[in-house]
């Protein structure tokens, strides 16, 4: 069973409200087309108006958002601190630092350090994306509930007026405008989302609604009151969506600012193919840099020459020729 107001629920509420409002207007001798003669087309258009009101909140699918949230969290887990990639890089970093020295060895060590830090950054910002989805979910589910409440409570008032008795004071739960701010506050760190189901994010958002009376106790004012409330609700929905849009934009800028932490291409001194590579750039802990320098340079030159020859041993290996 869904934990939110479904499309079917919303559509049923819109049909119910259209029916109750038509009954109420009929008792007042007012048809849906107050200018000309009401006909079936007018009734259909009238009903469709309420259906459209409901469909605005079907613009996002909470089920799909839940799937997206879970998929993105799984993607983040691949970059998690306890994942295999993190451990392998950590081991390489320790081994390089302990046993290999020189400018190129230092670059390899720094590269591993950057990779490790960047894995963490990627993890964090993948969870920021999950947080954005959780906010979309919180907003859409809250506004679906509010629209449903407005429609069903207004229908109760319409039914009472149609039955020619004074309606009981009736209220509907209106979403508070800073819902997005509350949804942001509930996640103190995106890392928390790894262990949080999407409904827990929504559940953590305190008091998202305030009670608002259904306006009017007579047909005309009830219709006007509904139209005003509906328009205000949709304006709040758009405002909340714009807030999420802005929040995502700000996180995107922050993320772009972290490009300096990306691993960089290695310098020529770390590339065996380059004449800048020398043994003292990358020498073993128990050697003196000078010990192997001549042999390494001689072999390096041979190695490069063999690679360059199309029929050389290394070129053949690279080409898959055995």
């Amino acid at each position, binding site marked *: 069973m869904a934990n939110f107001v479904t*499309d079917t629920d919303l559509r049923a509420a819109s049909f119910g409200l259209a029916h109750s409002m038509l009954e109420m207007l009929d008792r007042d001798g007012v048809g849906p087309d107050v200018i000309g003669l009401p006909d079936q087309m007018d009734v259909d258009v009238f009903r469709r108006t309420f259906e*459209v009101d409901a*469909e605005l909140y*079907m*613009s*996002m*699918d909470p089920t*799909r958002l839940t*799937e*997206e949230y879970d998929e*993105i969290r*799984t*993607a*983040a887990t*691949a*970059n998690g601190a306890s994942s*295999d*990639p993190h451990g392998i*890089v950590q081991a*390489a970093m320790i081994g*390089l630092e302990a*046993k*290999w020295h020189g400018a190129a060895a230092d670059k*390899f060590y720094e*590269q591993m350090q950057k*990779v490790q830090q*960047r*894995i963490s950054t*990627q993890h964090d*910002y993948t969870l*920021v*994306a999950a947080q*954005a989805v959780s906010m*979309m979910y919180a907003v859409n589910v809250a506004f679906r509930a509010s629209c449903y409440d407005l429609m069903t409570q207004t229908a109760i008032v319409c039914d009472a007026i149609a039955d020619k008795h004074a309606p009981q004071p009736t209220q509907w739960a209106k979403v508070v405008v800073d819902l997005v701010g509350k949804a942001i506050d509930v996640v103190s760190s995106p890392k928390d989302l790894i262990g949080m189901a999407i409904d827990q994010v929504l559940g953590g958002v305190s008091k998202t609604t305030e009670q608002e009376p259904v306006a009017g106790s007579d047909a005309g004012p009830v219709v006007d009151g509904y139209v005003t409330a509906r328009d205000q609700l949709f304006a709040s*929905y*758009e405002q909340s*969506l*714009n807030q999420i*849009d802005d929040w*995502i934009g700000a996180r*995107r800028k922050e*993320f772009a600012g972290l*490009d300096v932490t*990306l*691993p*960089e291409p*290695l310098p020529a001194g*770390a590339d*065996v*193919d380059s004449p800048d590579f020398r043994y003292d750039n990358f020498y*073993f802990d*128990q*050697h003196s840099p000078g*010990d192997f320098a001549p*042999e*390494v340079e001689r*072999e*390096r030159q*041979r*190695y490069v020459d063999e690679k360059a020859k199309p029929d050389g041993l290394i070129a053949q290996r690279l080409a898959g020729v055995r």
Partner: protein
Amino acid sequence: MAPPGTAFVTNVGELERYAAQLPQVAGALRRPVATLTEHTATARPMEVGAVSAMERAYGALTEDIAGRQRVMCDRIDATAEALGEIAALYRRVDGQG
């Protein structure tokens, strides 16, 4: 000239291990890229401009994350290749290449 008994053999093996493992790291880190770039569009009865704009922003954020992830993986592969070449060179110096 290298002093006797100071060959590379043991420790070059360690470099070879890093060179072999790092592409596996890059491969594992490439796996989430598809999730970050593929978003399933669902049919919706009504388009809302603010929803479309927000979804575009979200798509741009996840694309940015995926793009940096690809760069990171490419650099890891290049690092592994460079380490592997150093290991191969030092094995040759030991006469084992």
